[in-house]
């Protein structure tokens, strides 16, 4: 009876036909599902990072704050540019690789000095005498590029990163020992500045990475970057701490990251130009240290910003900027990553 009921509903042929159809449909569904899942996995790089480090608005500069514009862009003559200085003329001195190249205002190389190791800081006197800090010693060149002297390494861990020359003295920032050395012009050490000393109220330099710059201000005081404290400190030649300005902040008026600014330049009227890494930006501060304007924001240094950001395996010790200012107020910015010198002039609308 039961068999008869089944036979009455499905013939063997119908049963086989339906089974084949259903198997086909199931198989097709499976193939489609597999294809969909493969497509989803095909480009995993397209999926957004749920843990992205978001700097968001900090990477945009308010255009109203940018008071400078690009006048000229000069390609660094050699790979791995590190530092920039201006000499009489103005001649543009660029330390890159194991060379110091001297460029004219159009960017043409007029002379070159070969070194045994990369120069990590430069300073040029009005007479054209060039002081170059190599990692552990200082070399002196005359105006024709002839080496006049090499001052021996003052300490075991010396790592020179900043130089400032006055009429009678040379000040050298030693990042390895977190101290500024005061030399006479013959290379004799006259004193040490900035070592932590509670009795003299000297806070001590915090230098997490080899960015430690200084300048000799027109007011007779030294200005030394204390990057770990995010400020610029003023010292007498004898090493007395006078005052400091600057604050840690990713906002435009402060110094961002763990350790900034990375370099310092002086304007003829005593104002300061600062350079930062991480969020690469160049800014102008008054002689008293109040934020005034932006020379170039993060947008101007896209390659530099990428150098230590996601999608680049390097860290921020590979980035950085350096700056110098000529007598006419033009700001020369060396981009260590892009390998060029930007000549920035004050916008016509901002002049006077």
């Amino acid at each position, binding site marked *: 009876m039961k068999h008869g009921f089944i036979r009455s509903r499905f013939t063997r042929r119908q049963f086989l036909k339906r089974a084949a159809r259903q198997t086909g449909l199931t198989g097709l569904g499976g193939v489609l599902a597999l294809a969909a899942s493969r497509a989803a996995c095909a480009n995993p790089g397209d999926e957004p990072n749920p843990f992205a480090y978001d700097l968001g608005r900090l990477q945009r500069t308010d255009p109203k704050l940018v008071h400078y514009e690009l006048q000229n862009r000069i390609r660094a003559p050699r790979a791995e540019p590190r530092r920039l200085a201006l000499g009489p003329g103005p001649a543009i001195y660029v330390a890159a690789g194991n060379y110091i190249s001297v460029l004219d205002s159009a960017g043409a190389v007029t002379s070159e000095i070969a070194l045994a190791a990369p120069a990590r800081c430069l300073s040029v006197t009005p007479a054209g005498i060039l002081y170059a800090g190599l990692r552990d010693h200082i070399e002196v060149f005359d105006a024709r590029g002839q080496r006049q002297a090499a001052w021996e390494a003052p300490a075991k861990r010396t790592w020179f990163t900043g130089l400032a020359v006055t009429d009678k003295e040379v000040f050298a920032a030693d990042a390895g020992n977190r101290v500024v050395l005061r030399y006479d012009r013959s290379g004799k050490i006259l004193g040490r500045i900035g070592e932590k000393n509670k009795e003299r109220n000297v806070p001590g330099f*915090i230098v997490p990475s080899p960015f430690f710059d200084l300048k000799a201000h027109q007011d007779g005081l030294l200005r030394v970057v204390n990057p*770990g404290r995010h400020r610029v400190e003023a010292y007498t030649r004898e090493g007395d701490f006078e005052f400091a300005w600057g604050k840690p902040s990713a906002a435009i008026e402060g110094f*961002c*990251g*763990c350790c900034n600014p990375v370099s310092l330049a002086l304007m003829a009227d005593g104002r300061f130009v600062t350079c930062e890494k991480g969020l690469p930006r160049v800014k102008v501060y008054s002689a008293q240290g109040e934020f005034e304007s932006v020379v170039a924001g993060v947008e101007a240094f896209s390659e530099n910003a990428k150098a230590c950001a996601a999608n680049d395996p390097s860290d921020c010790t590979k980035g950085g900027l350096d700056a110098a200012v000529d007598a006419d107020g033009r700001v020369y910015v060396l981009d260590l990553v892009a390998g060029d010198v930007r000549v920035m002039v004050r916008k016509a609308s901002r002049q006077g």
Partner: protein
Amino acid sequence: MEPAAPNSPPVSRRQFLRQGSRAAALTGFGALFGVLAQRTSARTTVWQIDPAKCLRCGRCATECVLQQSAVKCVHSFAMCGYCQLCTGYFVPEPNDLNTAAENQLCPTAAIKRSYVEDPYYEYTIDENLCIGCAKCVEGCNRFGNGSLHLQVRHDQCVNCNECSIARVCAGDAFRRVPTDQPYLLKTKGHGE
């Protein structure tokens, strides 16, 4: 001594069976040895991340077959600046430089900040909390020396034949390394 009969077989049935079973036993032993040798060879290498290639893409946290990733942040103290404002620890715009939750970058609060002396602080990773998301690594690399980096922890990694993170690693940073040197730690000094 009687000479062998000229038409007798060179190997008797008993000898044949004896030699056959010996040969079979030797073959089986060889096969077993081969399998074991192969397994041992597969265990002589393990997965590791090359920090020089890591792009901090976040997939180590999401793609590991384990519920909590075997990839952890490790800290190269020799490279660390012991910064007061550590960009691997603090969000880009902290309210204050303290340990309040809203100021911490790590989504699981896996980094411990402890005072050393003014103005230095030490940062250590609690691996029980770390999920290997690389957010701190990105912060440290973005502004600092890059002392924080990711490594596969071999006390947790199950050493899959095909690592599911390696399959999608954006920087192709995963590679097999010898078990006797299972870590690729950053040791390079500042700016070197």
